[in-house]
């Protein structure tokens, strides 16, 4: 996705493309309302570009560290949840999640 002009932060086309990525859909009317709110949110997020007084060299990545293979735990088999418990919440049968046919 290319950077948009400063007036309009997101086009309708870009918005719908994001919606596809997020697996959401919006009616035409909803889209207009959402795009307005969304532009406001992006402007709000643009606040990260504010000037901050003080030493900018303190900027750093958080939580990144090298992990050596020795740090990794051993694989071990633990008890897992029984199928019937997991399927108690959903549409399932014969120990499987049930969905509409995928392969034709």
């Amino acid at each position, binding site marked *: 996705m290319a950077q948009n002009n400063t007036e309009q932060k997101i086009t309708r086309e870009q918005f719908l493309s994001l919606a596809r990525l997020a697996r959401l859909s919006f009616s035409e009317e909803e889209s207009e309302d*959402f795009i307005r709110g969304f532009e406001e949110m992006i402007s709000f997020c643009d606040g990260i570009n504010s000037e901050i007084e003080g030493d900018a060299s303190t900027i750093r990545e958080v939580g990144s560290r090298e992990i050596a293979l020795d740090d990794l735990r051993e694989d071990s088999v633990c008890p897992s*949840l029984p199928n019937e418990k997991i399927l108690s919440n959903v549409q399932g049968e014969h120990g499987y999640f049930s969905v509409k046919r995928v392969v034709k």
Partner: protein
Amino acid sequence: MSGRIAKLSSMLKRGEISAKELAEGYISRIEREDGLLNAYASNTFEYALSCADEADKLIRSGRATALTGIPMALKDNICSDGHFTTCSSKILQGFKPYYDAAVWEKLRAQGAVMLGKTNMDEFAMGSASETSYYGAPSNPVDLSRVAGGSSGGSAAAVKADIAAYALGSDTGGSIRQPASFCGVVGFKPTYGAVSRYGLIAYASSLDQIGPLAYSVEDAAIIYDAIRGQDARDQTSLTTASGATSLDIDVSSLKVGVPEEFFGEGVDDEVKEAIEGAVKLFERAGAKVKRVKIPAFKVALPVYYIISCAEASSNLGRYDGIRYGYRAENFADIDDMVVKTRTLGFGKEVKRRIMLGTYVLSSGYFDAYYKKACLLRGRIISEFDGVFGGCDILLTPTAPTTAFKKGTKSANSTQTYLADICTVPASIAGLPAVSLPCAAGAGGLPIGLQIIANRLCDGTALSAAAFFERTSGISSENCGEVKL
């Protein structure tokens, strides 16, 4: 102020009341008063009575702890085996987890009595609990006002004493801000101090479980019961051994007052209340100095970028296949997933998923997400610098007292400002407690936030206990319950 937990526990241990009678009393109060408050998303009354039977056995056997038999509530995003846990969202309607969260495992083992799940902003996304699928809980101090969010139901239930205490979760202030609005104590421990196993994820690098309680002593008892390293949460940490001491020598305490927390948007009555609290510490001999956290000005956008990015990934699991709600009338499996998510999520959740998807998408990742992560590092560095010369920071918890229902939800980014004082500690993973420190206009509670350095949870709590003891201001007398 003596805690509610100690008082009830002593009655139970002396045999003045059984755990079952106590639970029945709370159940009656919920049935009588929650119609007005809407603090609960669901109740677990039958389970509460069976927990109470177990608690009575523990008491008779002499193995009771301070929390045995005490009726409490879990936020609607903390799992317990076989009980509705819906994040107050349509998409999780009917969902009953098949395991207990680590915090509930610990409390259950001590004979805690769970009354139900408390109402919250949908998926903890909000600052007024108004995004809940069940409608907003009311503030017990003024029913026309919000209880705060996202743990609004927990705060309201504790204030109205329809739960002796409750657990909440805090991502950007969701324990502290509702505690401030309702006039109770809310404690967000150091990130990692309490296991997140069984907490339904919103933003994993920020989410933390903690207590909402009637006194600082109660909050410390609950914190001690739920904290500790847990192999099932890779981010959990080893915490200090032994019970948290609430003793503190204030004359050797170094108190920082960060000036940015008193800027534009913070009401004058809130500023005055916090300055009053600062003076109380100063009079007791604490060394007070004004400090600066310049990156405060980017904390809110950094928080929203990171939390929405993580939320867009965490909420990807709701597809209509594995949990709760599934849409009807779909053409194929892709259509089913899209329709389920579109009909199952509320407006604010969709907004945040969309923003998260945007900041993680190609072309925007560096400008938003990566930059926010770098600025997060700067905020952490600035706090580290400040804690080089201070033990605690005193700030407002929220810029205002509780606002009227329905006045801010239409303007999403305006509501985000309610988190401006709580978000910085969340970004840096610091422990922070909110406790009542004054009553503002209309008798509405104002919260004092005490922030301490990482893993210095005891320092934050003991400084809070000092303030509560010395000021004489507490949940009991700050904000009268109007029920």
